[in-house]
């Protein structure tokens, strides 16, 4: 299946003329001329981050609401998602291959499994931190269980939930760099194509860090926008 000899590839560099690239140096000129080659891996990396985080968020939200109603489920859910979280991603990418094959599916299933613990834990904490008095006031105004959850508890838990989403997103950007072992490309595959070439490593690694920062800022902006009361307070 995955028989690509990862360690022995190299980027084809112009011979003679560009001494800097030929000596595997850090070459702004080479980067300027070759930046195009990183565009597709970057898009793959975005895909490998957005899809797992979105799926992970949906599953975690469902689990958290379930655990909010049935408190005893919290422990078992934390144990199971904790085990997923502890399995190294490189190992998971191979353990899944006999079932889901080489490619995006394997990468996404593994990456989703890492987001679960982080997001679930934060949603649960957020819901538990809602002051009992606030809940009581809502109940006193005649809200049902469901209304209390969707109109009071979840909105009040938004900062905590978004914090979880930020951690999950930056973690996923980092782990997606290893998705190359699942045959799913991403910036990690560019790094492995020539890990001795400084320019290549700096651009591919730098783009991954930049991507994490951009996502972080994006989520923070969304959080500001949907929690106007937080700004008013402070």
């Amino acid at each position, binding site marked *: 299946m995955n*028989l690509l000899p990862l360690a022995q590839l190299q980027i084809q560099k112009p011979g003679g003329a560009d001494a800097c690239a030929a000596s595997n140096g850090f070459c702004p000129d080479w980067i300027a001329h070759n930046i195009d080659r990183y565009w597709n891996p970057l898009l793959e990396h975005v895909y490998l981050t957005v899809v797992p985080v979105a799926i992970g968020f949906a599953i975690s939200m469902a689990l958290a609401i379930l655990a909010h109603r049935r408190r005893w489920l919290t422990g078992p859910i934390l144990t199971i998602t904790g085990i997923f979280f502890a399995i190294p991603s490189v190992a998971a990418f191979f353990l899944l291959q006999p079932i889901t094959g080489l490619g995006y599916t394997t990468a996404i299933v593994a990456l989703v499994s890492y987001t679960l613990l982080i997001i679930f834990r934060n949603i649960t904490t957020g819901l538990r931190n809602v002051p009992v008095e606030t809940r*009581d006031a809502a109940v006193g105004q005649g809200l049902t269980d469901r209304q209390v959850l969707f109109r009071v508890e979840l909105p009040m838990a938004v900062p905590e939930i978004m914090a979880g989403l930020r951690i999950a997103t930056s973690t996923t950007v980092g782990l997606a760099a290893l998705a190359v072992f699942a045959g799913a490309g991403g910036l990690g595959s560019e790094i492995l194509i020539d890990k001795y070439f400084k320019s290549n490593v700096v651009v591919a690694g730098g783009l991954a860090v930049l991507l994490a920062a951009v996502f972080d800022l994006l989520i923070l902006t969304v959080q500001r926008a949907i929690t106007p009361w937080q700004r008013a307070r402070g």
Partner: protein
Amino acid sequence: MTGTLAFLGDFGQAIEFIFKERESVSGGVQIGGIPELAGFAATHMIVSIAALAIAAALAIPLSLWLGHIGRGDFLATATSNVGRAVPSLALLAFFISFIGLGYTNVIAVLVLLAIPPLITNTYVGVRQVDRETVDAARGQGMTGMEIVRRIELPLALPSIFGGLRTSAVNVVATATIAPLANVQTLGEPIITPQTYGFVGQLGAAIVVAVITLTVDFAFARLQRAVTPAGLKLAQPARRRRFSLPTRRRPESA
């Protein structure tokens, strides 16, 4: 053994690879089996333990002191944010291309990955010690050093061990890609499929997963063991009071 594990498909073959030597995919060399994998596992554990020990020796005393004097909020959040955002593969490749291959570089990368959770957890652990407890200790005439050693450190231990657990799992997981820098850990079969084939990759992945889960479990037990008896007793007191019962449905007509 071939017959008995056949129903497991690739997994059966991978388990066989772990326990029994076989000829390499490209031919000529014997691969797999307990002796070879034990060698990889030993290297894996040596680099991991070295990295965790160095990271702990650097990060824990520093963050204890920062927590004690109450400065370092920024450092504690910044390191964990940056630590998460830098992919382990990118960091390793950066070391390979700029500094070189070998044990020292692999351990340096692992140390850098292990430090952020240790700083954050130690710092937060010290800061969340009840200020009144610290004041009481000071009132009894304890010096700053005594407060750190006898009050803040013991009370922060559960948090510190939480950090050690996160770091240990990260380090053992990342040591898997160390063969990219010519250090033959359990990742060796994973990055040389031309010799080991998919079965070898899967076998190594199984061993890595089992080791990491064991490390995670061991540190979880350790974390419970170091929690001071006083903190364990304090837990039930934090139970929240019961909320009013709610109606299941909106009132209809």
